[in-house]
């Protein structure tokens, strides 16, 4: 009996449908079945049971036209989506299509599209809405400090930058272990270091220092809490600074091989060049040779070292050794040697 009524409803639906598509009728069908089952239980124990005649269904109302037709283009969108909500096809006046198309077809339209409903949307965060948020937050903000207008000012007054990340997620727990990582950045030029302290500091830092930007980066994540890690990073900075200024007894045993960079002065290369030039022993006219030097003797060391080709040679060797070897460096060295030996 009930089943019979269902079928009637369905057929009614089909006939009366004012030109809606197949999906509408299907929807209709789902609604219809939902209705029929509830009716069925209602029939069993409902108060209207008394009348043996056909029960009166709640009169069906036609769904009106969707709200999108009535929307003004200059309306206040933050009133339509004041907070995060799922996608409502009747409220969004955009002809959006989503889904994998059938062969020869197009993605399905928005009406009743589950794909559009499933995904998160940001319709509540349009620029206008965000502006409104900002305006609402402004009374709670403090002013940007005067005197901190440019990046230079920032570096001067606030040289240390600490970077932390907070993570927000919905789940059984709000904690995220990645939130404990703290990165501390500071420019070495803002620290007060002399020659020895700078060299020692650079040796201690190793990879943590970037030569191009002169920024020291300390990343700490050994403690479980963010605050502990920031304290640890500040502690490391303090210790580095103070250790760099100290000079230990064993530092006097530093050899040429221990040095960070190659220095040409007092190197084997300098010795070789001086020996070679001394044996070549032709004083260049116009050089300030001291009175103690005779005609056939070699010019003194300082005079030799001040010659432009020796300077060029020194630059080429230093670059070759410090920057690593390459074709260009080798060619530069070659030119310098040719000039030196006057080839």
């Amino acid at each position, binding site marked *: 009996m009930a089943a019979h009524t269902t079928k009637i409803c369905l057929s009614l639906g089909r006939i009366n449908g004012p030109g809606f598509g197949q999906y509408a009728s299907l929807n209709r069908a789902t609604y219809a079945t939902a209705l029929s089952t509830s009716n069925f239980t209602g029939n069993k124990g409902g108060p209207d049971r008394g009348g043996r005649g056909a029960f009166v269904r709640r009169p069906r109302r036609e769904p009106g036209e969707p709200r999108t037709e009535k929307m003004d283009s200059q309306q206040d969108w933050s009133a339509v989506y004041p907070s995060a909500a799922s996608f409502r096809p009747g409220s969004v006046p955009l002809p959006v299509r989503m889904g994998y198309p059938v062969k020869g077809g197009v993605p399905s339209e928005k009406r009743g599209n589950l794909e559009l409903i499933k995904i998160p949307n940001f319709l509540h965060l349009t620029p206008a809405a965000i502006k409104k948020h900002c305006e609402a937050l402004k009374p709670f903000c403090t002013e940007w400090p005067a005197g901190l207008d440019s990046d230079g000012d920032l570096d001067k007054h606030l040289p240390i930058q600490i970077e932390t990340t907070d993570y927000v997620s919905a789940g059984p727990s709000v904690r995220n272990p990645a939130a404990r990582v703290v990165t501390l950045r500071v420019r070495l030029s803002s620290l007060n270091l002399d020659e020895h302290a700078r060299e020692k500091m650079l040796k201690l830092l190793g990879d943590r220092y970037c030569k191009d930007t002169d920024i020291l980066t300390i990343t700490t994540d050994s403690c479980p809490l963010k605050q502990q890690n920031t304290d640890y990073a500040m502690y490391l900075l303090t210790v580095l600074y103070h250790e760099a200024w100290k000079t230990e007894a064993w530092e006097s045993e530093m050899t040429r091989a221990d040095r960070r960079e190659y220095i040409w002065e007092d190197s084997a290369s300098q010795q070789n060049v001086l020996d070679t030039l001394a044996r070549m022993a032709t004083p260049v006219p116009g050089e300030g040779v001291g009175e103690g030097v005779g005609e056939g003797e070699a010019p003194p060391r300082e005079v030799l070292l001040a010659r432009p080709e020796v300077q060029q040679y020194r630059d080429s060797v230093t670059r070759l050794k410090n920057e690593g070897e390459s074709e260009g460096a*080798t060619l530069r060295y070659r030119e310098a040697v040719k000039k030196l030996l006057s080839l």
Partner: protein
Amino acid sequence: MALQRVSFRLRQTVACARSIHTSGCRHLQEALAVEPERNPEPFSIFRTQESDPACQLENHVGQYYTLPPAHIQTVFPHGLPARFQLQMKTFNEGCVMVRPPALEVISYLKRADYSKPALRFLFYGVKGSGKTMSLCHTVHYCSTQGWLVVHIPDAHLWVKNCKELLPSSYNGSRFDQPLQATNWLRNFRVTNEQFLSKIQTRHRYVWTKREFTEEGRPLGELVDQGITRVKSSSDVVGAVIKELRLQSGQPGGCFRMAVAVDGLNALWGRSTIKKEDKSPVSIEELTLMHNLRKLVKNDWCGGAIITALSQTGSLYTPKTAYLPHVLLGEEGFDRMDPFVPVTVSNYSEKEFESCYLYYQDRQWLQHPQSRTEEGKKELVFMSNRNPSALERLCAFL
């Protein structure tokens, strides 16, 4: 006489040479059109008649010159690369290509002042680019100019695979390598026959209780002593080097010395020779290497030191290393400083053409497709114009 025989054989290949060079290369044909009277080439475009390195100029770049067979025997008893020697045997002639690096060094040698300390040159380049051949070319020049040539064909051979290692009698902490030393002395004698009687020793050398060489004896006697008495040959090598260094720059000196060392990076590398207790021998502990290090220092004058790097025979160096500082190491670079590094690169287009035509002329390229344009492009691609790669490829064709 040998030259005439060579040219007679070449005449027989004229017919094929002519057909080849009319079918091919625009490059070299233009060169021919430009200077018909400079190089009257009845034979082929890739050869030059100038077999004297002193007279070779920039316009000979890319062309092959023939090494006179007499010179091959005297100047290069041990100097040429092994594959080149095989090629010489196959083609019945030794042809060396004139290339810019060697010409550059020869030009420096022509203009150098020999009262100043010895100039040092170093050929470097990727594997197989022709460093050893450039070195041999320069050695040929020095030899034709009448210099005394001290040619160490491959220093790497002295730091590996040593069958006999004797403790040195002169210095207890060092080791002698009698076989290598004797071999080298023999080849040295062949190369520098004419100087052995002219140079006199300046010191007295005592070899054993009964054997000694007095002052004023000719160098030849010293060398013979080393060859006959194998045990003391390493010390003889040391003595010879010392004498030559002392005497080469002297005002009354009758000779100029050219020191040619191939595989220079062996001097400051590592060795695989082991002592009896399996501990490795350092380079410093080998007499031959110790003396060689003294030789390449520029504290003597009246000559030049021409060297070449080699990764091929070297020990414990990565395959891709070819730059001087990388192969020589810090110590080596500091000791060789200041030197003129000369780069030897792969063949240029002109040189490649020349090599290709030479192989064709010698009937070395048998495969029919290798004679087509396509085949040539394939060879260019496969070998990347690397001389040794090209030679190995063509060996299959």
